[in-house]
């Protein structure tokens, strides 16, 4: 079973749109929406939930006012300033470290589980999908990302799928790390803006750090062709393949408003421009599939991707 993660340095680069298009093109795949902070894929894929499970992150502390003698030890030892002056625990600040439980002389503190979200196993018109919803202000979404990935693997086994397509979260923090570790290929969707280039370099550092083969797709390349050239030069130098560039096209928003993937939308569109755009996405997908198969050949010694340390 192969795993592909699609990420971007930041949101809004068209990552989910592209991933959804891939989902409609892939023949035998499970889709995993790992952008758990702001999961959007379900808006297009309309999953029908088969299984739902509560997700518990770390426990948080609770002080029993009956037992508390207001000695202040917990406040003194809590490094996250989560205990207030009147000895109440702020659930947003508490990191669940449990230090207060060991320093309290009167056993007034206990650790309480709390539901921090839900994970789902679902069915879509393009195959099984694993996704989740994180409760507001909840922590450790990295752990929820891992839960979604585990569910995706289970679905893949259950339905005999040989590929998992993961829509990753933005950034380079804990959720992004959880979404890319152990995957076979990372596709970075980049944008030719000054900040896009900067974000691209940060995520490439991340994929290099975890030694994951990486390819790039430049979206909206025509909003600044000079910057597109900069990205291509940089990638050539780093020996990271740029496997496609897509122009700016309204089809992305139009398809979204119809709750369709852009491939579906293009099928009913008579617009040449839009059809061409969808064709380009198909080509990018074909390349991704080829590379994934190449990665598979690693055992036989064929190396498809070169990665230089950044």
């Amino acid at each position, binding site marked *: 079973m192969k795993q592909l993660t699609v990420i971007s340095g930041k949101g809004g680069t068209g990552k989910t749109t592209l991933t959804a298009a891939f989902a409609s093109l892939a023949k035998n795949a499970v889709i995993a929406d790992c952008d758990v902070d*702001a999961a959007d894929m379900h808006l297009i894929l309309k999953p029908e939930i088969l299984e739902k499970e509560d997700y518990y992150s770390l426990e948080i502390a609770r002080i029993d006012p009956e037992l508390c003698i207001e000695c202040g030890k917990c406040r003194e030892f809590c490094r996250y300033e989560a205990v207030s002056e009147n000895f109440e625990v702020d659930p947003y600040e508490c990191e669940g470290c449990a230090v207060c439980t060991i320093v309290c002389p009167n056993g007034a503190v206990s650790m309480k589980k709390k539901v921090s979200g839900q994970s789902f196993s679902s069915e879509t018109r393009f195959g099984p999908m694993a996704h989740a919803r994180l409760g507001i202000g909840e922590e450790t979404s990295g752990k929820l990302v891992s839960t979604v990935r585990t569910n995706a693997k289970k679905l893949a086994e259950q339905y005999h799928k040989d590929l998992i397509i993961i829509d990753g979260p*933005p950034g380079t923090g804990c959720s992004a790390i959880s979404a890319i570790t152990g995957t076979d290929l990372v596709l970075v969707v980049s944008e030719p803006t000054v900040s896009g280039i900067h974000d691209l370099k940060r995520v490439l550092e991340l994929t290099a750090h975890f030694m994951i083969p990486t390819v790039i797709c430049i979206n909206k390349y025509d909003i600044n062709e000079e910057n597109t050239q900069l990205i291509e030069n940089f990638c050539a130098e780093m020996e990271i393949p740029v496997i496609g560039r897509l122009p700016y096209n309204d089809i992305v928003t139009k398809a979204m408003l119809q709750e369709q993937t852009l491939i579906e939308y293009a099928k009913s569109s008579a617009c040449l421009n839009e059809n061409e755009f969808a064709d380009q996405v198909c080509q990018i997908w074909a390349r991704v599939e080829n590379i994934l198969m190449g990665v598979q050949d690693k055992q036989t010694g064929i190396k498809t991707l070169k990665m230089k340390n950044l």
Partner: protein
Amino acid sequence: MKIAIASGKGGTGKTTVSLNLALSLSDVQLFDCDVEEPNCNLFLGFDLEKVEDVVCPVPVIDQEKCNICRQCSDFCRYNALAALPTRVLFFPSLCHGCGGCAVLCPEEAIQESQRFLGVIEKAKGRSSPEFYRGLLNIGETMTSAVIKELKKHIDDHKTAILDAPPGTACPVITSIGDVDYCVLVTESTPFGFHDLKLAIGVVRALKIPFGVIINRWGLGDSRVEEYCKAEGIPVLLKIPNDLRIAELYSRGIPFVQEMPEWKEKFLSMFEAIKLQLAGVEEART
């Protein structure tokens, strides 16, 4: 006054709004709280200097003193310690620096040292806006720790604008938790609308007064506007889906610099926010 600029997710134009607002006001501080991907300075181009390192205390185990009682590894909620038959292993990247293991160890075998999580930087000399940012080291997960350190540089006598990270998880809460007002940036597409509702959930849970900016206005449909109207949420500003703005953005130029008429709009938005807050105050008393 502290104003955070947030949105349910990235790419909606948070940084654009933060920058243009900061550049339209005087005597203002700007904080880039998106420490995983701080982008503000790409548009400002300030020379930065390091203000401080952000560190996290980590245990150092004296293997001589340790009798492998396993108390520390059993306690650690983040699995940063693992007791083997012959020694205790430590995984720095998992440690949150809570200090519990050192408190617990009956043999006093644990001392603390420091691990570097990232840095806080500021614009050199006198700049307008006064600018600070945090930068998380690659591969690190303690995002909120860096944001907390960054926010210690807020000067309460000035207007502080905080460019929040995307999402609705811990780093966002840390960034916007104690601000006076939150500006939510969105676009009127199904994704934008969905993410806006998540963001509204966050600010409502935190009881922060807020308003909405619709970015790339004209793209998509009118669902965001209709929703805001129905919910009585002020739409503070509409930034059109303008090729010129997008082009300036791609080149790293805040658009108020080339389109000065927008300064006025950001200024009046700032005044509207103050009025809204005054109203909130009045309603409270």
